[in-house]
């Protein structure tokens, strides 16, 4: 009890300190400054996203173009997490059988109702289509590769929890993931060779608000979308299906 009240007291002190610190940056105050003659990073991005890159969504322009290298690192972190997850949860066949004989509670294996199964069957292609739409239009509308990939993974999650026997082809997933990651890096190398800087965008960037605009930005975001979608599906598959797969 004393420990808990001490924790609460400590957290209150911390909360007041953090809150007061952020009060110094008043909510809703304009800290961007003049966009036409940028003095801050934000103003620079807001100026050059439509003018130089012809990318409607300036958040996408930052994530994929201005900070593209950062995003490559981020994709790598996600990849490492997925790999780590798979290797931590990996089980040999004997271990699996031993666990099933023991008193470990297994996943409840009730079949889903007809409504759920039919609904999932109808919704699954629509969810996939929404996900693809979101990452193809990442440079025009809110959303992008990460969001689209997450939407695709939710479609697969729906199928996983509705159909117990639903299986994804692991080799296809792994190949798609590796190839899109490789394509991302190769796009960066293309910029390095042609323009002298890694992940440098092309000179031709199209017209603002066209589907094909922004140079390499839509291309990279499509690669990221495929990569994140397959990766998250892989993670879900590993978390839900503890049984060893046939090819292992």
């Amino acid at each position: 009890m004393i420990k808990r009240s001490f924790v609460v007291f400590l957290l209150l002190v911390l909360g007041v300190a953090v809150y007061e610190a952020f009060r110094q940056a008043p909510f809703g105050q304009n800290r961007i400054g003049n966009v036409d003659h940028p003095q801050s990073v934000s103003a620079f991005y807001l100026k050059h996203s439509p003018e130089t890159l012809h990318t409607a969504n300036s958040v996408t322009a930052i994530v994929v173009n201005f900070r593209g290298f950062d995003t490559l690192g981020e994709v790598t972190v996600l990849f490492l997490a997925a790999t780590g997850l798979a290797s931590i949860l990996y089980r040999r066949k004997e271990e699996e059988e031993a666990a099933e004989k023991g008193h470990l509670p297994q996943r409840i294996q009730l079949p889903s109702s007809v409504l759920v199964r039919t609904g999932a069957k109808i919704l699954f292609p629509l969810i996939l289509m929404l996900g693809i739409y979101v990452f193809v239009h990442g440079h025009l509308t809110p959303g992008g590769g990460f969001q689209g990939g997450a939407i695709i993974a939710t479609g697969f999650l729906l199928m996983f929890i509705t159909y117990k026997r639903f299986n994804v082809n692991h080799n296809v997933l792994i190949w798609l993931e590796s190839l899109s990651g490789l394509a991302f890096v190769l796009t960066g190398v293309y910029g390095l060779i042609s323009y002298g800087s890694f992940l440098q965008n092309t000179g031709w960037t199209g017209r603002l608000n066209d589907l094909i605009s922004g140079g390499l930005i839509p291309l990279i975001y499509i690669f990221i979308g495929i990569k994140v979608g397959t990766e998250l599906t892989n993670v879900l598959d590993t978390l839900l299906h503890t049984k060893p797969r046939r090819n292992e």
Partner: protein
Amino acid sequence: MSNYQEIISQYRPLLEIIVYGSAVALILIGLYAVLVKKHLVKLVIGLSLIDSGVNLLFVGVGYVTNHTAPIFSPGFETAADKMVDPVPQALVLTAIVIGFAVTALALSLVIRLYRHHKTANVEQLNRLRW
């Protein structure tokens, strides 16, 4: 539209309390869970709560009163001086993905511990050998 903007301007201090306050509250609730709770899954939930709080705080700092989303949709091509800060949004986009990766990895470690020790309670995980 202008009526809406007036209302927003009028309640700016209240909005500040709501946004910053809820963000700090989320961080504190998450830290409380991490410090006090004994169940490992609750600990992971606490970590992801801290994550959400920090993200909310970032986006809140980037908000500018009466400004719109930083997307140059048709009709907004020249509205660059009427947009909120895009940099915190891009950072939070990164942070959400990393947060997901961290949560997934932590949960897999919890599953592994549970398989080995048949419990996810920190108090009973006192044998530091496998």
